């Protein structure tokens, strides 16, 4: 049984208000709306589901591996997972996002719950010894708080969905209620996603979302935008 304090920590570190800069990104949504790939609730739901699937089969696998590395006290194992994520971010926009948020969460961890591992991780990022991606930083937060890899995976998936849906509220005609309905619907996919990711190795990280990649490339080159690239 998970303690109430543990559940509260899950709420805290899974909250979309966590100051890691998620609000500045749309995970490709802005270009998708500008290019009319998304124009209604159904297409938005599909796009969020695609984003969550990609997150589970790439970042989600590295997050679980980093969590296991942290429990084993093996910093090099964590760093290998971190490099593996970074070298798979072929997309510049996603690379920028994961590195900015990854550094912020490492700083946050050192501030609110300093441990030798957290200090070591932030030092490695500062020395450019490791890229410092977001899923790996999030895994360290959960591992050092005694929270499970499943909890870390939960927070990561939830964060991807809320990032995209809160961006959608600012970019298209959609009500808060519809956003909540989509969030509730897509969250039902997370159990299966976790089972698959937990059984995979870092070498198995894979995704196929070419249109999302192309939209991110369009976003980088576009002149009018609300969200960062």
């Amino acid at each position, binding site marked *: 049984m998970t303690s109430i304090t543990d559940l509260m920590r899950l709420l805290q570190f899974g909250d979309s208000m966590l100051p890691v800069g998620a609000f500045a990104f749309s995970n490709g949504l802005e270009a998708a709306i500008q290019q009319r790939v998304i124009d209604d609730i159904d297409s938005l739901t599909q796009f969020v589901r695609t984003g969550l699937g990609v997150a589970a089969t790439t970042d989600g696998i590295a997050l679980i591996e980093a969590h296991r590395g942290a429990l084993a006290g093996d910093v090099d194992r964590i760093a290998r997972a971190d490099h593996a994520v970074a070298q798979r971010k072929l997309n510049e926009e996603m690379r920028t996002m994961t590195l900015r948020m990854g550094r912020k969460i490492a700083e946050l961890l050192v501030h609110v719950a300093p441990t030798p591992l957290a200090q070591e991780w932030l030092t490695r990022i500062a020395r450019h010894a490791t890229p410092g991606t977001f899923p790996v930083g999030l895994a360290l937060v959960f591992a050092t708080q005694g929270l499970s890899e499943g909890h870390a995976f939960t927070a990561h998936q939830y964060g991807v969905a809320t990032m995209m849906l809160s961006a959608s509220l600012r970019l298209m005609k959609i009500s808060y209620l519809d956003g909540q309905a989509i969030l509730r619907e897509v969250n039902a996919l997370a159990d299966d996603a976790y089972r698959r990711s937990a059984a995979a190795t870092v070498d198995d990280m894979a995704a196929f979302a070419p249109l999302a990649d*192309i939209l991110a490339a369009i976003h980088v080159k576009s002149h009018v935008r609300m969200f960062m690239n």
Partner: protein
Amino acid sequence: MRDGDMSGEFTMRSLCDAPELAAYRDEPQQLPAGAPGKDGFLRLGFEHRDGRSVLSELAHRAPLLAQQALYYDEGMPELPHVMMICTAGGVLQGDRYAVEIIVGENAEAHVTTQSATKIQEMDANFAAQMLDIVLGENAYLEYLPDPVIPYRDARFIARTRICLPQSATLLYSEVLLPGRTHYRSGERFEFALFSSSTRTERPGGETLCSEKYVIEPQRSDLRARGVMGDFDVFANVLLFTPQGHAERLFAETAAEMNAKERYAAGATRLPNGAGIAYKIVGVDREAVQAQVRAFWSRVRREVKNAAVTQQFQWR
């Protein structure tokens, strides 16, 4: 260079252990997987000799082979063109191919196929391909095979390893068609598995970038927004080149959704200053291949100050 057969055996085994193949390990009723005639090997070695590049090494095992190098490129008359050929009627279940392309210091080459790679219908096992590309200092390789057509229930896994120094240039393209679009009522995304991974390293062992995509149309909705949407054809183009070239080519390459020609395309800078990844999806093969060709022309102009000549009428 390593002994191709030994390393091919070892890495082929690890490739065939990939989890996405779990459901497809049964033996074909015909020849067993990897049997003689299904265990293709091809090694192409290029060297720079007396002012031009030559195909200095050619080793093969059926069903793979290659023709001698031809010098018909009007834009780069010194550039050897080699066509890889598969003498079987396409890629069959249980086929295992290993291809090695080595381009030595200062050498140049263009490698393509004779026709589209047809991955036949399968009811047992799968087909697998290993591709190793090794470039020397200042080497230049255009690797532009014809499109791949996976038929209904086809299962195919490919692993590509690329090793090149900072001074070398590799243009690598992979074009995937949805199936036999003019066969019977038209076949679109009815294959079972298309898995492709690419890892690029420096000669010292530093990994620059990796990519793996697993496409399983029978298990997940390829028509979802963000995946293929209404598009049928996918091209993945990777360019590894010195950073100055990459920056100029990135600036020249438009990212757009083109409603008239019905394609979407965009380039991104790769991690670690490795080069550019350029992805295109389209409704028609012609529009996608035209964008690949336009990108190839810009690359050749930038890196070699040479033109890509007009497509032959029969290609």
